[in-house]
């Protein structure tokens, strides 16, 4: 119990630190929020009035405390760009981005695991080297190019998918999965190499363990050995990576959502930056931070489930 309490306290501390840092950084960004709201032709008096209404002249720490006080009550302010409450705007967009990232992670793992297993079983073979080359190519190809190429081939030329647009899962589960498949592939391709290489290395290491020799001696099939005995102890690294790579993936949603014209959190973030919509940007940063920290919190829990030794080690520490 103490273990989880400690982690929760850490989680809150991280959230406070990140929101304070992001609040400060956003406040220090060039550009005047009052000018963004009122336009460049506004008078100095009007801009001053907006500054007073939004308390922009207060010191940053004072503004942060006021903001965090409102934020814990669910009030993230109003987006000047969409005229919506920021919390409402984020709520509308969150589902899409969560689904997109989940599909991208799933795609990455579905591709990485078989590649890793094949590579580990056939170490040093032509297949292993070929897979390694393919993974490197995946890692080196910019997501923007992948997204455009997927769109041109599968949406424009073949017509299998729509180029843009999002169908909500609640409206049509199949339509929803279909609408995000190309963006998910574009987003999920990059981490494939990382996942596959780490998992392959861990599998190779696991294959040398004594219990694996025992499993082989018992006459288990390769398939059974891999699925029942090798994958679980070898997956600690890749599970950890999945959590860490979420940060990169969230960054990737900015690009992918813009290319596929998806109304998600990534596009909301970039539009907020472009329009100096600081309230909305701060709200988006908070949500993305919570997501990142939260997912890594869950990953920690998963690691304990996968390998109870990690909990024991932490307790001992």
């Amino acid at each position, binding site marked *: 119990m103490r273990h989880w309490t400690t982690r929760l306290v850490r989680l809150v501390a991280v959230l406070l630190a990140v929101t304070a840092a992001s609040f400060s950084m956003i406040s220090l960004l060039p550009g005047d929020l009052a000018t963004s709201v009122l336009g460049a032709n506004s008078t100095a008096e009007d801009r001053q009035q907006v500054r007073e209404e939004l308390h922009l002249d207060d010191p940053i720490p004072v503004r942060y405390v006021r903001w965090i006080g409102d934020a814990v009550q669910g009030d993230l302010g109003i987006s000047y*760009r969409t005229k919506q409450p920021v919390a409402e705007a984020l709520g509308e967009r969150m589902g899409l981005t969560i689904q997109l990232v989940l599909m991208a992670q799933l795609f990455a793992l579905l591709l990485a695991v078989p590649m890793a297993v094949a590579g580990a079983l056939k170490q040093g073979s032509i297949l292993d080297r070929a897979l390694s080359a393919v993974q490197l190519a995946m890692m080196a190809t910019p997501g923007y190019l992948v997204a455009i190429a997927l769109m041109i081939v599968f949406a424009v030329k073949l017509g299998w998918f729509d180029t843009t647009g999002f169908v909500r899962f609640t409206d049509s589960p199949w339509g929803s999965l279909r609408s995000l498949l190309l963006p998910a592939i574009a987003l999920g391709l990059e981490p494939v190499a990382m996942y596959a290489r780490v998992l392959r290395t861990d599998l190779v290491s696991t294959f040398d363990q004594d219990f694996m020799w025992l499993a082989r001696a018992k006459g288990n099939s390769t398939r059974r050995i891999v699925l029942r005995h090798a994958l679980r102890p070898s997956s600690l690294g890749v599970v950890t990576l999945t959590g860490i790579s979420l940060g990169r993936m969230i960054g990737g949603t900015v690009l992918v959502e813009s290319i596929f014209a998806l109304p998600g959190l990534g596009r909301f973030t970039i539009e907020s930056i472009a329009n100096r919509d600081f309230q909305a940007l701060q709200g988006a940063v908070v949500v993305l931070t919570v997501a990142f920290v939260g997912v890594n919190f869950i990953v920690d829990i998963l690691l304990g489930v996968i390998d109870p030794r990690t909990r024991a080690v932490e307790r001992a520490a």
Partner: protein
Amino acid sequence: MTRRPRRMHRGLAVAFLIGGVLSACGGNSPSSGTEPVTSSGGDTTLPSETTEAPVFTNPPTTTSPELVAANGGTLTVSVEGDSTGFNPAADAWANGGHNVARAVFDTLATYDASGKVVPYLAESITANDDATVWTIVVRSGVTFHDGTPFTADAVRQNFQATKDSPAFGSQLKLIDTMTVVDDVTLEIAMTQAWATFPNVLTGDIGSQVGYMAAPAMLADPEGARHPIGTGPFTFVEWVPDDHLTVARNESYWQRPAYLDQVIFKPIPDSTSRKAAFDAGDTDVYYTGSSLEITEYLPMQEAGELNVAIGAPSEPDVVMFNALKAPFDDVRVRRALAMAVDIPRLYEYLEATGVKQPMSGPYADSSFWFTPSNYPEYDPEGAAALISEYEAEIGPVVFDFNGNQDPFITSYQELFQSMWAEIGAEANIVSKAQSENIASVISGDYQITLWGGIGGGDPDTDYPDFHSATGLNFSGFSTPEMDAALDAGRALTDPDARKEQYAIVQEILGDNVPFIWTGSNQFGVMSKASVQGVGQFLLPDETAGQAISGGRLMLKDVWVIQ
């Protein structure tokens, strides 16, 4: 497969060059390059605005006599980005916002097909002799989508909202008092003469004052999210960054629109926007890239889609510094202009059939166009002028500025080769765009690629041509041209103004401070089943201007069911 990237690259490069110059220059009003204007307003005395009339060089071809416009259908139009809201007095719009606004709102004035400002939602817009008092008479029997009547007081409230707006108040700062004479008549006293007042009532980039919103919407703090106008379509829903839907206004004051619905879909990435149209996910796609338009023209000829070309906007130019040798001598300027083979340029730009050659700041189709002595292509004559100059003064060697984009550099090389043929030696200088702009502003250049001059109402070119503005970067001016520019600014009668601007064009043609390399135009591509893009009927059933930059009129568009 190898051709595609090159074409895309060129499109980007040209857009970069022009866009950069325009944004940095700031000499013209934001609307100057994009709006076409017009001519007579029937029995009204509208001072005409602007530019050139639309040139529909590629009218839609699929309309055949047996096709009859019919109600029905949904049109999906991609736009470049979403707007911050739809309050004309508070939210500054790019093309996307204007397209929504043109569906939901009507403007007090608009452009007829010849490019002249004419009353639209207003019955008439007239001025007293010195343009210090304007009278707007609105159409009777028009109602907003919320059922409230459109009256002179509604116009007053719209103007007042703009005057009170921190963002747009400056646009109407010359309005002193507004008096509602009766239900349909509004009298506006200006603090000083304002001859071009109707120009700002047309609802274009930089002039949103003309869009008439329901007073209830203006008073509602949430009104920007639920626009209410008198336009051909009523607002249905807006999901920011995803779509905005409007539906036919059955109670429209003109013949109701044909389309059941229009969905505006913001797609910020230009490649994706084009791909969405190519894949059939959107019905209408507009672009300012002549390369892309050219790509679609064969498909139009094959009946696979329609292409409508909009009114010409600000031309591209090569600008001389008339204060620096060798370009302080008109013979050299004239010779270099005579050496430029425009069709060869267009072939290189892959813009043949889209860009239109020009001989001055206004396209031939413009109301404002008057012929001048601007030189024709004549390499032999040009070589003779260069020889004459060399014999008297010395060799013609100069620096030719452009930005660092490789495509721009190779475009400059084309000029360089044409000038070399007449004995003039150009050294290409590639600078960072900001650096080149700074050079031009400080007068530290000899000749450069440039833009943002001409194309709009002639008065918007005042800073570029007058000697006393500090923005006349070519350095060329004459007392006669200054006088004509001053006189044109003070007149309200379009024909009288045109006489003054004819003097300006004549002087520019004689002295060649610019090489006019052609107009820029928007193309609007639509599916073969979509009819009427590029058509816009005014209340008297005469043609209005349907495409202005990337801004479209959709009330006369219909879909073959």
